[in-house]
């Protein structure tokens, strides 16, 4: 599927590739590429030899699947039962709904128009069975309509690939000289059964033939779309301030969420202004919640962003990113603990005011370099698999970046005797070290100097973490420089 707005020109051969065991493999090709003789499943390097100015893009298989899943729900505008069929197809059970569009032919035209408005090209067919529709859409004429009586006649000229068989079976049938579905149907059933008795379903031509010819039922098992959870208030007169309606909206939304056993991670408050404009406030929640008081509290100070204009008469509150949330009993006597007490609620309140990026949590990381021994993540990340604490003693506070100090020392490789930091002189009375920490060559730039760390104590008892960057004659810059990196307790 290609979006129309950023699609390449039609005369340029473009293929989508996926990673195969021996380099990239062609996943799909556009019309120009197909005309140049490029087939899906071939290696990209081979096809470059055929078509040197081939443009290769990587396929987003996961994204395509998700888009198709959304399209399945979008296609419910034509009929209530829709399912995804393979990686690139949709099956719509239009029984009893085609007359709403004025017959099957008009319905197919309507579908093609609508899909092309979305920027999608589609091949459509109507047939009594799933298998026949699959074959006619891919190998039949454009917008084929096959009435129930002419099923065998319509399928007979199509190639056997239209039977949804796997590659080996197709090859075998071709070697047997059975090129069309009609030729396959003319073979006695007994011999076909005997020949493919041990194969699985995608390799059994007889079963696939029966499915296509309506001999074997293949119902469309449609999955219900997730219900949209939304609370709204319609007002008789336009108002300027939604504050008074918020508690009731939150209550309503949370009642719906509780009924469905869900919690939401996003909230969208939308006001529809009388002049047709729409204004929105979005909120994110750290963990799934359906506590009306908490959700209401998160809107504090956010409503100023709404531009009311001449007033609005419809307010809606939508729950986004819903996820299952079981009911929890926190106390034996039946009283619920105040929801304020939970950590996610605190994170929400802080994030609603200061933004989620400010609230961070350090976790340990596997590295000897002090800056990389901790990583900053979201406040509610779980730390499974984090390494243990370091073996050597580490300072309580760290300066980022390390601050350069001027140092007086007796022997060049030894500990400093005195250093000047922030224009104050510290005389060193005791020291521990050096602890040598080499740069991580797989991450650092070449030429990064090693560090020798010293824990020092000055005359007033303050304990610092100093390091010397580099050695005297290491050939990576001039004299070593000294930095103050942290403070001990």
């Amino acid at each position, binding site marked *: 599927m290609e979006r129309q707005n950023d699609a390449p020109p039609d005369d340029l051969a473009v293929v989508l590739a996926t990673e195969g065991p021996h380099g990239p493999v062609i996943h799909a090709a556009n019309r120009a590429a197909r005309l140049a003789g490029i087939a899906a499943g071939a290696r990209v390097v081979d096809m470059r030899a055929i078509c040197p100015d081939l443009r290769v893009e990587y396929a987003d298989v996961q994204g395509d699947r998700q888009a198709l899943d959304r399209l399945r729900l979008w296609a419910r505008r034509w009929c209530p039962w829709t399912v995804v069929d393979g990686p690139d197809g949709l099956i719509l059970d239009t029984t009893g709904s085609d007359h709403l569009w004025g017959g099957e032919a008009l319905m197919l035209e309507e579908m093609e128009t609508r899909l092309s408005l979305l920027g999608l090209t589609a091949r459509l067919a109507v047939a009594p069975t799933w298998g026949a529709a699959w074959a006619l859409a891919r190998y039949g004429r454009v917008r084929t309509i096959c009435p129930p009586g002419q099923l065998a006649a319509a399928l007979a000229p199509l190639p056997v690939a239209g039977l949804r068989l796997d590659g080996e079976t197709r090859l075998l049938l071709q070697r047997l000289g059975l090129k069309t579905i009609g030729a396959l149907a003319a073979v006695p059933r007994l011999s076909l059964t005997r020949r493919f008795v041990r194969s699985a379903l995608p390799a059994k031509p007889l079963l696939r033939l029966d499915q296509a010819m309506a001999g074997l039922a293949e119902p469309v098992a449609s999955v219900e779309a997730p219900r949209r959870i939304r609370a709204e208030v319609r007002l008789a007169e336009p108002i300027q301030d939604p504050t008074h309606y918020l508690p009731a909206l939150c209550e309503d939304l949370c009642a719906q969420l509780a009924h469905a056993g869900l919690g939401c991670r996003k909230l969208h408050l939308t006001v529809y202004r009388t002049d047709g404009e729409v204004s929105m406030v979005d909120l994110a929640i750290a963990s799934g919640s359906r506590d009306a008081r908490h959700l209401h509290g998160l809107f504090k100070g956010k409503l100023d962003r709404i531009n009311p204009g001449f007033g609005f008469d419809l307010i809606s509150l939508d729950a986004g990113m819903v996820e299952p949330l079981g009911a929890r009993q926190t106390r034996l006597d039946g009283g619920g603990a105040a929801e304020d007490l939970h950590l996610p609620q605190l994170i929400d309140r802080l994030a609603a005011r200061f933004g989620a990026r400010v609230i961070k*949590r350090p976790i*340990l990381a596997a590295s000897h370099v002090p800056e990389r*021994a901790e990583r900053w993540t979201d406040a509610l990340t779980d730390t499974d698999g984090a390494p243990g604490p370091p073996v050597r003693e580490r300072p309580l506070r760290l300066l980022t970046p390390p601050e350069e100090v001027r140092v007086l020392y007796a022997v060049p490789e030894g500990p400093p005797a005195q250093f000047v930091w922030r224009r104050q002189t510290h005389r060193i009375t005791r020291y521990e070290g050096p602890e040598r920490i080499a740069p991580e060559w797989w991450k650092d730039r070449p030429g990064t100097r090693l560090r020798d760390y010293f824990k020092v*104590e000055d005359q007033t008892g303050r304990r610092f973490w100093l390091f010397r960057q580099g050695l005297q004659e290491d050939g990576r810059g001039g004299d070593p420089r000294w930095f103050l990196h942290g403070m*001990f*307790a």
Partner: protein
Amino acid sequence: MTAADGGVAGFVLSLVPQGDAPILWVQDCLSEREAGRPYLPGLTTGRRVIHITLSRVSDALWAMEEGLRCAALGAVIGEVWGDPPALDFTATQRLAIRAESAGLPCWLLRRAATPGLSAARNRWRIASLPSRAHPHDPQAPGDPRWQADLFRSRQARPGIWVASHDRAADRLDFSAAFRDGAVAEGDGAAERRAAG
């Protein structure tokens, strides 16, 4: 005590009660830049830390108050640099009352500050002292010691102690006060506010 001393944080962390509830650590920008941020590999408590750096002191105080509403936390630690106007008597009183009603330990670490009016229940002035002897290396600094000056308190008699932290046993020992000319007084303040 001078401004960039790690001793205050060490003293406060050794007073945090045992447990594995997370600590909310709120800093204003200036104290993060001047005195660094807490470094997880150096925190021996093994607790989770939720860290927030905010540019305005009033926001930092608001975040601390919000944290005191959450009983899932183990402690709330705030750091404020200097004497900002937002940190007046009312603000400290709000924090103290919140902390007392929640039963949560709450400390406000103030650096480069003058000990003005405050409703804090206990106010300490902390300075580092030369550490104890290292058991294996006579050259090296050992377990930390601090001069802890409780200069205002509602619950206890004010006094000056030498506090030493025994890291192996995670125990804070207070021993008799002594006067040391090397420790200058009054050039800064670390206030500690403890609830309950």
